[in-house]
């Protein structure tokens, strides 16, 4: 069949696109044409509104095109298109259920286009889209609206935080969750809040409040959404941050490529882009870390919240949540209790009936119990639970895994409240280190070493070990009574920081090899000496007599704490001559503290270094080799909760892994190898997949023999003079950059 000629008319029919192009290039000249199309749009709109449900496909298509045209040029004719936004809004809110999907998508797209062109503001866009997101039955529309809403919120917060808009939306979300607690609509509030939290657009207490309300909803889905946010939202946020800074550009490589490759505009642009990106990354690296509090810390009234959660979803027998979801709620409650040191006495008796080996996912319960324990919990409340765990889990008859999980969970509890144990029980448990199973042995030993540190009196003498016995004798190791707190005097580890700074200074001086230049130079260098970019922070001068205008305020706390520390020591010690010694030492220490803490203001960089030094010191203090697990334990932040894995871990020790597991572990992190191939071949295919070309060497090797044979023959026939000429030319060329110029 011959190709049908397209008549001119038919071409014109579909030419709204070219009209749009023309209008955008010269809006003044095409005002008349636009006005015509505006009228056509208006007529088509009326046709549509007169019977929205039964509009024909032709009409739909025409309307679709005209909506598109007007949306794209609306910013050029603000007077004519003033009612356009209201038209679209009305169309969407009233007829979104019957609109043709394509047309519906176009209307939503046009609305966000208007927002991008700044014809309307974010608030009006979001207040239009949000009610539809909640009410529409169409899944595709919901996902479209969700992405549009989130992207608009991101966009409007990209340059500076738009507090007004955020507050409006947060209020809307809050109302959504609280207005009808039984409906699933709260899910949307959860999803949006979580997404924006993840992207660090919302970081304050208000979104946490929304999620808090979601947790207290009656609908299971909404509750789970809220609870998951508190349990995992912050981790998600951190991961997101790591991801974004992942892609590093090798600046050296980029520069090198710039010298080698042919210089084109495209390459130059790419190079500029890379440089810009590097600069941005650099700036980001040096920028002060945003002080983002975790969601758990931002909750207002954690005690009330935890109590309500517990009563509503756990204690309440009418609550019919599935076990998994109940466990999630329990995790949140116990996490809050542990983190904020809350007191919910009724929580502990509630645990009793779940602490049997037959209970499904009992390790999670055990982990939650450990999480819920802290030093302000009365030992009377926990002791029966510990006894129950010991009775139910730990016996010669029970399986090794069960016993190890039991002992380990008791250890986790005792770590947080050592007073929960009676002497006989501890002795009984410690004796399990004679067991045959390695997991049980490890768990029992863990318990023993814990009590060596915190409460050695409770152990039998033979289990106390050398250090603990010596410590007991010297009075260094002492147990805290219930309710007693270990008070830190001054800033913990400040002397470490001071020492470090001194060392750094000396090192610098040694490097310079001259200190005759005097103090003036030293002062200048002071800022750099810290080694960690304190120049970003205004406050860094170490000299109290410098004329920077900073007044050193004497901290009243520091003054108070010195004597307080003294008093405490005097009480605890028994020997009278020790008092004066210690008092003097304490006075000296207080002196030293005031020297650094009072003469300088610590920058966040200083504090970070301080934390690092403290950790190092703690590691150093431990004698012998420090196990990897031990290091992890120390590094583990107190805010990270206990998980079921922690409880189950010792049971895994000494288990032989199957072959499949070993193979999987070996393969982990290595490139996939579907078929047997040489490494060279794999590398080559990888290179090809990346779109890179072959090397010159490879090309030469592949070259057709017949193409090279002529030259090879000619080379044989060359005269000696000729050969020499060639060789000298080659040397000259390689010296001057290795490229042939014209005529060479």
């Amino acid at each position, binding site marked *: 069949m011959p190709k049908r000629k397209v008549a001119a008319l038919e071409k*014109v029919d579909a030419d*709204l696109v070219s009209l749009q192009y023309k209008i955008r290039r010269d809006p*003044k000249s*095409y005002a*008349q044409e636009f006005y015509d199309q505006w009228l*056509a749009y208006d*007529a088509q709109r009326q*046709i549509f509104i007169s019977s929205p449900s039964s509009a024909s496909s032709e009409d739909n298509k*025409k309307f679709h095109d005209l909506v598109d045209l007007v949306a794209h040029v609306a910013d050029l004719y603000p007077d004519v298109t003033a009612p356009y936004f209201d038209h679209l809004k009305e169309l969407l809110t009233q007829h979104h259920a019957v609109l043709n999907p394509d047309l519906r998508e176009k209307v939503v797209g046009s609305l966000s286009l208007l927002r991008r062109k700044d014809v309307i503001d974010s608030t009006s866009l979001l207040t239009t889209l949000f009610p539809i997101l909640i009410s529409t039955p169409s899944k595709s529309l919901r996902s479209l609206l969700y992405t549009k809403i989130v992207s608009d919120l991101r966009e409007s917060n990209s340059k500076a935080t738009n507090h007004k808009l955020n507050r409006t939306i947060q209020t809307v979300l809050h109302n959504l969750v609280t207005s009808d607690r039984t409906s699933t609509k709260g899910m949307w509030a959860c999803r949006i809040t979580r997404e924006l939290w993840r992207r660090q657009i919302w970081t304050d207490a208000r979104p946490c409040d929304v999620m808090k309300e979601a947790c207290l909803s009656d609908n299971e889905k909404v509750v789970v959404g809220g609870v998951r946010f508190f349990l995992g939202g912050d981790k998600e946020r951190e991961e997101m941050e790591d991801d974004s800074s992942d892609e590093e550009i090798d600046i050296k490589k980029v520069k090198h490529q710039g010298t080698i490759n042919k210089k084109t505009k495209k390459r130059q642009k790419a190079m500029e882009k890379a440089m810009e990106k590097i600069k941005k990354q650099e700036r980001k690296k040096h920028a002060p870390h945003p002080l983002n509090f975790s969601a758990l810390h931002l909750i207002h009234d954690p005690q009330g919240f935890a109590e309500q959660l517990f009563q509503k979803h756990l204690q309440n027998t009418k609550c019919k949540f599935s076990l998994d979801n109940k466990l999630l709620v329990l995790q949140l409650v116990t996490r809050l209790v542990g983190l904020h040191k809350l007191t919910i006495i009724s929580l502990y008796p509630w645990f009793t009936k779940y602490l049997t080996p037959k209970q499904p996912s009992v390790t999670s319960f055990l982990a939650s119990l450990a999480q819920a324990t802290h030093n302000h919990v009365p030992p009377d409340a926990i002791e029966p639970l510990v006894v129950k765990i010991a009775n139910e889990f730990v016996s010669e008859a029970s399986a090794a895994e069960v016993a190890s999980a039991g002992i380990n969970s008791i250890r986790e509890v005792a770590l947080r409240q050592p007073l929960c144990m009676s002497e006989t029980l501890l002795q009984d448990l410690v004796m399990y280190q004679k067991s045959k199973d390695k997991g049980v042995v490890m768990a029992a030993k863990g318990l023993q070493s814990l009590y060596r540190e915190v409460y050695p009196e409770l152990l039998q003498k033979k289990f106390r070990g050398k250090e603990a016995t010596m410590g007991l004798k010297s009075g260094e190791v002492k147990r805290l009574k219930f309710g007693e707190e270990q008070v830190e005097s001054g800033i913990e580890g400040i002397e470490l920081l001071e020492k470090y700074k001194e060392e750094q200074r000396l090192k610098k001086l040694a490097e310079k090899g001259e200190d005759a230049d005097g103090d003036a130079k030293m002062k200048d260098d002071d800022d750099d000496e810290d080694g960690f970019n304190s120049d970003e922070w205004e406050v860094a001068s170490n000299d109290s007599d410098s004329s920077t205008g900073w007044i050193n305020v004497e901290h009243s706390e520091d003054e108070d704490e010195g004597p307080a520390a003294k008093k405490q020591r005097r009480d605890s010690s028994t020997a009278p001559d020790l008092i004066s010694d210690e008092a003097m030492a304490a006075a000296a220490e207080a002196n030293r503290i005031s020297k650094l803490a009072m003469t300088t203001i610590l920058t966040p960089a200083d504090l970070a270094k301080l934390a690092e030094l403290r950790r190092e010191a703690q590691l150093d203090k431990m004698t012998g080799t420090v196990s990897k697990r031990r290091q992890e334990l120390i590094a583990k932040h107190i805010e990270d909760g206990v998980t079921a894995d922690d409880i189950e871990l010792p049971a895994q020790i000494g288990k032989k892994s199957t072959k499949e597991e070993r193979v999987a572990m070996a393969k982990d992190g290595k490139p996939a190898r579907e078929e047997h191939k040489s490494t060279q071949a794999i590398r080559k295919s990888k290179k090809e997949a990346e779109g890179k070309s072959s090397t010159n060497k490879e090309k030469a090797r592949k070259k057709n023999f017949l193409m090279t044979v002529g030259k090879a023959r000619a080379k044989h026939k060359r005269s000696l003079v000729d050969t020499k000429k060639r060789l000298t030319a080659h040397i000259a060329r390689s010296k001057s950059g290795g490229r042939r110029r014209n005529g060479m």
Partner: protein
Amino acid sequence: MGSSNKKKKEKKKDFNKAKLKVGKAKAKAANFTDTSFKSKSIVVNQHTLAALDGVDLVGLFKQHLNQAINSKSDKLRQEALVQLTKDLSSKPIFNPVGVPNLLTKLLPLITDSVANVRTNFLKLLRALPPSDVAPHVEKILMYIRGGMTHLSTEIRSDTLSVLDWLIEVCPDETVSCPGGWLKTMNSFSSMLGWNPSVASTLSVKGWTSATKTSLNKVSKKNGEAQAKQITIFAKFLEAGFRPETPLPYDEQRYWDSIYRMPTTPNPFAYMNLWGAQRDEDGEMYPDRISRQQVFERKWRAAIKTGVMGAKQEGGVIGRAASVLDKVLRTAEEGGKKVVEEPKIEEVEEVEA
């Protein structure tokens, strides 16, 4: 050498016996047809295969109706329209679906891309009985307005023919239905380039103002088209300004209008009880006085300047413009009368 070797090999290839290998699929034959694909729609080349003798006429009518809208081929659409027209103009009229359904289905054809389809559609409209068309004037006008400012000039002019027919068939409804007066006028002025609102939005500050651009290139054909536009605009205005002839008094009708159920559809349309709120343009202007007033206020100046310009052009356009001018003048005189009349009434009232 290389290429000839290659060719030789390729020639031999056909006669080599394919080796079968264990564990490999057998090679596909040269004439193998892949039937594994799935299709969402099936394209049928011929639309009707059945013989037409003795089939039910209603079904056939509906089939034509569907073909007229949905068929991809313009020939088929056109033929279907011809068939429908034949049915509608037969005596007695054969129309199993009714005029409202027919119109809702077919009206999008006003802006069909093929000229023959449009002309045939107009023929079909002409075959419709005027009394049946009257209730649907508002809807038809919507489509007409959509077509009047269409990108393509030919569609515009064909749409005007439809409007011409509508004014002929039911002039009063055309100018008095909601949006029928001002919105249509708006479309007309935009079509002719006489629209003051475009100029105001532009706020042209330079010494040139190019009102006519690009798409409407000046040509002989274009001139004729513009003349047609002006003529039909004149007809439209004439219909709007036509003095209403009072119906002779009929006692039966008088009492019917008070106590009987009204026979016309939507008799209280002017109250707009259920529809969306109308703006000034979308409002209905049911009587001549209101039409005249709103015309004086909004359009007279703009259209007068437009007419002056068109008159100066002369030729076909000039002639058409002078017709329009005449209409405007008679309207003005009528308007004066209209304005005077109430004065007299007022005086009477005062006297009373």
